[in-house]
């Protein structure tokens, strides 16, 4: 009999793998690796704000919601800066540095609020947010991940071709009547939503790696879009499930194992070249 927490972890891994498998090639072709760095900052800032609110309101469910809203708003702001003429890297740099500073200030406030409480359940929450803890997922977490993930998956799938065209030639797209601003904003929102949904599973520290490497590896081994997607999906599912199994037997956090596995595959491919 498989323990229920393992089943939840496996189901969450499959959902996360499908999302990352589809998103990662777009992150690579659109050159959004640096955006995932911004995602780290916005999610952490959102989580800190959420934790402050959670302590004040005594409702721990608001953490994910606040992180999600803050992340989406900040990513929309990055998309807006890009449309104003800033390069993607500049826009990310401006927002990330600003948000990083605010996060530190937020931590200061969080510690003060925590000091007023007799019991600090969020201490564990902060750590699990950073490293990810798939074995601690509750049924509610899994439900949110499944519903939100399925919605984000279909939105990404339906607009996949448009995102490819946006990556290929945004000016061309605009000149032929495509709403580049709309597509860019939706893409960034989807990146933010997916990041917020999976962060509890993969952890903030390793989020950037697991979001970038599957697509980077898939693009290295194939140039056909269908094969790229197939490799990316296969890789994320294999790595995520393997890391859950290995973590169960070794006690090492699965996000760390997944990152090392991906890094090994990527490094091996680079050496082979």
């Amino acid at each position, binding site marked *: 009999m498989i323990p229920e927490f393992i089943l939840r972890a496996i189901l969450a891994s499959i959902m996360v793998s499908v999302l990352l498998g589809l998103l990662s090639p777009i992150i*690579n*072709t*659109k*050159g959004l690796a640096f955006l995932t760095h911004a995602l780290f900052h916005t999610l952490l800032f959102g989580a800190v704000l959420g934790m402050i609110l959670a302590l004040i309101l005594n409702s721990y469910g608001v953490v994910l919601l606040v992180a999600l809203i803050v992340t989406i708003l900040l990513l929309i702001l990055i998309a807006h800066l890009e449309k104003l003429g800033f390069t993607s890297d500049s826009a990310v740099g401006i927002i990330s540095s600003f948000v990083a500073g605010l996060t530190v200030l937020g931590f200061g406030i969080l510690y003060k609020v925590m000091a007023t409480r007799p019991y600090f359940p969020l201490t564990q929450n902060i750590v699990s947010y950073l490293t990810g803890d798939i074995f601690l997922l509750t049924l509610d977490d899994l439900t949110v991940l499944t519903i939100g993930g399925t919605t984000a998956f279909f939105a990404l*799938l*339906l*607009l*996949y*071709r*448009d995102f*490819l*065209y946006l*990556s*290929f*030639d945004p*000016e*061309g*797209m*605009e*000149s*032929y*009547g*495509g*709403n580049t601003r*709309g597509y860019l904003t939706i893409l960034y929102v989807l990146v933010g939503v997916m990041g917020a949904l999976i962060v509890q599973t993969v952890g903030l520290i390793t989020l950037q790696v697991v979001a970038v490497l599957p697509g980077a590896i898939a*693009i290295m081994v194939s*140039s*056909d*879009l269908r094969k*790229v997607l197939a490799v990316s999906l296969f890789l994320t599912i294999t790595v995520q499930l393997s890391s859950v199994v290995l973590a169960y037997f070794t006690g090492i956090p699965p996000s760390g194992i997944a990152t090392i596995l991906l890094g090994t595959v990527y490094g091996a491919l680079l050496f082979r070249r």
Partner: protein
Amino acid sequence: MKAIKARNLSITYNGKPALTDVSFELDEGRTLLLLGPNGAGKTTLLRTIACFHREYTGELSVFSREPCNARELIGYVPQSHSLNEKVPLTALEVVAMGGIYKRGFVHFKIPPEILEKAESALEFVGLGGVGNRLFRELSGGQKQRVLLARALMSDPRLLLLDEPLAALDPSARAEVTNVLDRIKKEKGVTMVITTHDINPLLEIGDLVMLINKRLIAFGRPEEVLVDEVIKSVYGPMARVIPAGGKIYCITGDFHIHSGGGER
């Protein structure tokens, strides 16, 4: 009808003047070759006509409309190296891009009629068999022709081409020039083509505009391409050479070798 009308057009780029006080008119169906040294403002003018750039004063109209209101009449062909070739798109998908944005926001699948039109456009530019090949794996000349096919998908009345012959070998240049000639003759599309090397395009150019931050000369090739005008922009080594009833314009770095090996 006037395809393009510019009156006292001055364009700035990040607040700095890129092109000052340019006036010209281009009739529908004519082909204008836009010539000038690096940084002369050729691409900026092209991008302003295409509504990618909006910092300008004076009057500019495309088929009697503001450029941004005439977008559906314009086909813009960028330099192929400005595209992100990491994206694994086939030639057919690239061409279809020119047709799908006239309707809908979600394009999960390319509609069959758009695919059919894209195949015809590829046939028109002489690339009937390459539809399923990846764009990035095509030669420079083939890529340029795919981009021309893409531009034709929206049935434009005005084609704006940014250096369509840049970095192409002579045979690829001839292929692209032949396609441009077909577009002009069979479709009657007005074209504005920026170029550094005007010679391969002189056969299809009705008018030549020479700019260097301002309008230097505008008129028929034989009026504009004279030593005096060319030297004023490209320096004393630039020349116009008449040969076999044609004119050849030498604007770049060139060397004249004497019999004894002296220069």
